[in-house]
């Protein structure tokens, strides 16, 4: 008999880690209208970054695009969870970087890509350039029985979601059944992962409170440039690797400086993930990939 408790299991399969997340036993309550699918999460490409943490920065995003295109079965869609570009004080340069980024990712074979902003894209102009180039900074959509919600916790430079967006989130959630399959996409962690490194959302607890009554919620985010898995109550939060440079484990040292570049292993610590959704079981299988196909 399957235990109905929260289930989290990490195991190694082939060259990549597989992470399963979800509620066992939820399938019995589900009706029709669900269909398995998978999507890809890319994050933190910081296009425009120049520095010692990644001397190969001009190529990393293109390599990731090539690897995604080489996947045996194309994903239904791709989500890009923020920091598409590296910040700049110059509004024209910001738009130039976003234009170049769009040109590079236009080579993806998968044409449905959902973009979210990171603080490097949006915090210095409250999301103005991002909205011009990519559209809304928060939104929701449905795919094969799963309700996706993109939350913007970066257009406010103080890392607040804000009252207006929280009201929108509350209204959006109100249309969902309590056992709906809900995936939240965002950039910063919604919980206090490491506030002393600014790895938090100032009013993230209010968003989590709104999500809590829903039985099947999973959060995917970026920002911290590494894989991380955390439970707040029954809600799993999964951070993705970056496509520029890895950062140290949360709060593990005084400063959040990038891990040193290793010329012997240029893509070390970088990557993207597949998320295989099984809406009927309310479970997600995460498969991690390196930037360059091995």
């Amino acid at each position, binding site marked *: 008999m399957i235990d109905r408790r929260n289930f989290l299991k990490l195991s190694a399969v082939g060259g990549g880690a597989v992470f399963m997340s979800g509620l066992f036993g939820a399938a019995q309550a589900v009706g029709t209208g669900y269909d398995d699918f998978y999507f890809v999460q890319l994050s933190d490409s910081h296009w425009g970054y120049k520095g010692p943490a990644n001397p190969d920065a001009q190529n990393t995003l293109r390599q990731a695009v090539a690897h995604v295109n080489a996947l045996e079965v194309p994903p239904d869609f791709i989500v890009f969870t923020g920091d598409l570009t*590296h*910040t*700049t*004080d110059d509004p024209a340069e910001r738009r130039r970087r976003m234009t170049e980024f769009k040109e590079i990712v236009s080579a993806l074979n998968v044409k449905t890509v959902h973009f979210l902003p990171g*603080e490097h894209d949006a*915090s*210095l102009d409250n999301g103005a350039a991002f909205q011009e180039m990519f559209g809304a900074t928060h939104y929701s959509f449905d795919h094969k029985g799963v309700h996706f919600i993109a939350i913007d916790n*970066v257009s406010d*430079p*103080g*890392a607040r979601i804000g009252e207006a967006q929280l009201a929108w989130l509350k209204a959006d959630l109100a249309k969902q059944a309590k056992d709906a399959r809900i995936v939240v996409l965002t950039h910063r962690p919604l919980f*206090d992962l490491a*506030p*002393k*490194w*600014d790895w938090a959302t*100032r009013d993230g607890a209010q968003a989590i409170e709104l999500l809590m009554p829903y039985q099947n919620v999973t959060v995917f985010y970026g920002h911290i440039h590494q894989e991380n898995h955390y439970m707040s109550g029954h809600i799993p939060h999964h951070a993705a690797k970056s496509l520029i440079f890895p950062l140290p484990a949360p709060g593990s040292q*005084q*400063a*959040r*400086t990038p891990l040193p570049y290793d010329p012997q292993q240029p893509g070390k610590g970088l990557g993207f993930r597949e998320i295989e959704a099984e809406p009927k079981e309310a479970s997600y299988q995460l498969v991690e990939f390196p930037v360059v196909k091995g």
Partner: protein
Amino acid sequence: MQMSKRRFLMLAPLSVAALALAKPVKKEKVIKIEARKFRFAPNMIELKKGEAVVLELTAVDFPHGFSVPELKVRADLVMGKPVQVRLQPQEEGQFTFLCDNFCGSGHEEMAGTIVVKA
């Protein structure tokens, strides 16, 4: 009986002195901190455990934030206008403070340490 003006002037300074003796007013230690892209100056502050201090922060080029998460202290800084934050740390240790209002390409390095000693 009405007090003469001369006698009142003589007593007045004594009264102030007595009040000061009865209720000593301890002047708060003020530490001035400048916040600019992308550093706090000073970025190392030594305090004594239990010591009440005022951090007077002035942002010179951007409305930076100031946060000491482990001490549950934060403030929004205002450009050119000192903002005062009162602290009285009750435990020894090292506590990171940071700018928590994204300010640009060096934002991630804009941090410092408060060292609290016995």
